[in-house]
């Protein structure tokens, strides 16, 4: 199983994050800023951590992230499904 986080590159304007931050501040929370990201938890067949990592990287390149605006972070979740 892999956990893939896709988020806007630093420096890219995040309107959803800004609106969320404002709303949290309105509720009284001492919030300076919010950045919104999307998390995909993917169960996949892979016979090694390296294979799971490279497959997840390929998923980001081909669908989950647009490199013009997105960064992605992959974590292989050992012992939770798959054959790692």
């Amino acid at each position, binding site marked *: 199983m892999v956990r893939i986080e896709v988020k806007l590159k630093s420096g*890219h*304007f995040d*309107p*959803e994050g800004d609106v969320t931050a404002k709303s949290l501040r309105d509720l009284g929370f001492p919030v300076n800023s919010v950045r919104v990201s999307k998390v995909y938890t993917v169960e996949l067949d892979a016979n090694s951590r390296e294979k799971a990592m490279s497959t997840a990287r390929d998923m980001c*390149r*081909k669908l989950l992230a*647009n*490199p*013009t*605006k997105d960064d992605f972070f992959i974590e292989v979740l050992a012992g939770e499904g798959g054959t790692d």
Partner: protein
Amino acid sequence: MDLRRAKACIARVGGTNCDLEVKVALEHLGLKTEILHMKQILKRGLSEYHLLVFPGGFSYGDYVRAGAIWGKEVHSKIKSELEAFIEEEKLVMGVCNGFQVMIEAGILPNGELVEVPKAALANNASAKYECRWVYIKVERGETPFTGDLGTGELLKIPVGHGEGRFIPASEESLKELIDEGCVLFRYAMPNGEAAGGRYPYNPNGSVYDIAGICNGKGNVMGMMPHPERAFFGWQLPEGRSAPYGDGKRIFQGIIKYLQKY
């Protein structure tokens, strides 16, 4: 070519919802038009068509990113067919979600179906779904889609989107777009001046006020505003005072091009 022999294909998938309006516009101008689901396109191919339209809507629920899933489907399943279509200088048009699809499929900016998108249509800077009439200025007349328009003309056409903020991959790619005449439409003020990023004239915060782009030859075009929603006079906010809206001019350009094709 004799317009009676020309044919348009309007592609659709689940979530597409502007296909019928585009069909009505094209057929009103005498172009035979069919709406085909992607599954039908995979079976029938595109060879019998001269115009392919990716219309607006919320394809596949806009999951992942607006237009991403359909864009990747286009890229993985009909890439070579679409490349041949473009090479033959037939027309490909994307409106709103269709433009997002074309960006994600790598068809635009350059019309070459690259695997990794070279631009993005990000969340509107206003953090809102922008549904409003805007002015767009024609940056390059006499292309297949602006054959009925001159450079500098101003059009009033509505937008309706949440993810329309055009971002080029880099400063260099923006310069390339500008230098090669690939910026086709820019958001403008009612008096024709550039919007300069001012909201709501530029409704989404697009870089360089970009509302629509094309490839170098101009036969591949994507735009966020909806010309099919400004086709007939009765669609305009001012009512029925005019028989047609500015959107018709873009479809008229298509017809002119196909008549010469």
